[in-house]
């Protein structure tokens, strides 16, 4: 299919949002490298972080085909005000419960989004979704098990998981806020309807959280657009972009 200009603009926004979430979450996961509670998890989380960067490159690659943008330029030379990740992924890494629960909530969302995107009418997206969904389901299995083990482990691990859920739950709402012009993509079957993904997501994560002994908080979530960020993103980007910006003239890395 060939995209209309309107669809192209909307798809660029959605792909960038997807990539930005992966880039920022992968950064938070990388912060654990060398500091995980067991050596096996240094390995597992490094694996997840690697796949996330792979996905970011995949989404930015699709974007590049649409507008000729350069993935590393977008990653290392946009400021906090231009990033369109959710606040969920920019929150500081917290403790292991926070990290595993955030990763679980996010993996469930991404796995279901990709699962639906396999049916995209835009073939390049359908293709990559087909490939990425397998990795994502593997992450989901890993983090779902952690949620259960920590939720049901000791009173302390349960308390930490519940604390993490109390903070994180409201932020998940933003994952499902449509990006600019997304309705035209949904209408044309190019990308999944976030509302439908949310329904499936809720019916997946709610029972698992409850089975893991956790109570899901009430109240409204964060519904602002992905342009809104906390100071945490600024600190993250300062670090992440420091080398690229210091050697801005470099052609080869």
């Amino acid at each position, binding site marked *: 299919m060939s995209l209309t200009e309107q669809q192209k603009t909307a798809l660029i926004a959605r792909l960038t949002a997807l990539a930005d979430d992966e880039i920022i979450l992968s950064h938070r996961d990388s912060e654990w*490298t060398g500091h995980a509670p067991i050596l096996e998890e240094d390995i597992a989380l490094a694996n997840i972080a690697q796949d996330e960067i792979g996905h970011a490159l995949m989404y930015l690659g699709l974007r590049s085909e649409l507008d000729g943008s350069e993935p590393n330029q977008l990653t290392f030379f946009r400021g906090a005000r231009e990033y369109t990740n959710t606040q969920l992924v920019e929150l500081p890494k917290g403790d292991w419960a926070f990290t595993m629960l955030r990763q679980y909530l996010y993996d469930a969302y991404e796995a279901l989004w990709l699962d639906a995107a396999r049916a995209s009418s835009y073939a390049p997206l359908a293709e990559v979704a087909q490939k990425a969904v397998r990795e994502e389901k593997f992450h989901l299995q890993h983090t779902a098990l952690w949620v259960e083990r920590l939720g049901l482990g000791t009173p302390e691990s349960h308390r930490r998981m519940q604390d993490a859920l109390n903070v994180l739950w409201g932020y998940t709402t933003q994952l499902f806020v449509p990006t600019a012009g997304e309705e035209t993509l949904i209408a044309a079957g190019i990308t999944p309807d976030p509302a439908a993904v949310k329904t499936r997501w809720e019916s997946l994560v709610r029972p698992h959280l409850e089975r893991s002994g956790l109570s899901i908080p009430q109240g409204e979530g964060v519904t602002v657009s992905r342009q809104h960020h906390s100071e945490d993103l600024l600190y993250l980007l300062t670090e992440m972009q420091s080398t690229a910006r210091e050697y801005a003239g470099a052609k080869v890395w």
Partner: protein
Amino acid sequence: PEQIAAFEARIGAGEKIESGDWMPAAYRHQLIRMISQHAHSEVVGMLPEGAWITRAPTLQRKMILIAKVQDEAGHGQYLYHAAETLGATREEMLDALLSGKAKYSSIFNYPTLTWADIGMIGWLVDGAAIKNQTMLAGCSYGPYSRAMVRICSEETFHHKQGKEMVVAYAQGTPAQREMAQDALNRWWWPALMMLGPSDKDSPNTPQLMRWGVKLKTNDEVRQEFINEHAPELIEAGLTIPDPELHQDAQGNWIHGPINWDEFWAVVKGHGQMNRARLEARNKAHDDGAWVREALNAYEARRVAQAAD
């Protein structure tokens, strides 16, 4: 004494000693010391490189670096397993690391100050490690020898990546060139020193060689390392920070005097990062205590339920 003679004869015949075989207590002890030090080095070695994952200049480099540090964690795992075959427990070994009793390679007490350090560590530090590990792959203790074979093949890949990076930067922008040269200035001597004290200050070596644990002396391995790397560094357009370095009539590259005082100072804890490295490992261990408890509690409950 009869047993020792038989044991030494096996080694002399090039046989591998395996986990259940009889071995002298000193052999077991030396191997546990060496293998666990080696494992600790992999684990501590994750820190100086891991710190740059969040600072890598491109997404591709970031993925490669994560994969590399992940490999190091994997090497730590194999090596702890190899030491366990000699009766050491992971807990004992970790306690010895965290309390500062056990050593790890002193090279990781130097700081990583620029991105070029990541390339230079791959090229020089992994390059030096490979020389040592290739030798150890032929060692007389089977599990260690096999772990070394596996590790060496991964390290060779890291070494190649590191070299490619540094060569590219040495031919890059002036700022990149300067970064690469500075990294060489800071890592050259520590890389030479990491192959261990000069033979005359290495009292364990003769015994270890007789038992086939070491097959070459530190100075021999160091010479191999320099012979390979010196011409490549020069070829890359970099200046090795040793005005006395020269090739002798046999084609060996001869280095100037090594500042062993610095080496011993760093070993004894006066490197820039000794304290920070141990603190980081201890913090990770302490912060992770509740997680390990939860895992055990969950597992115990699962086992109990399965038994019902």
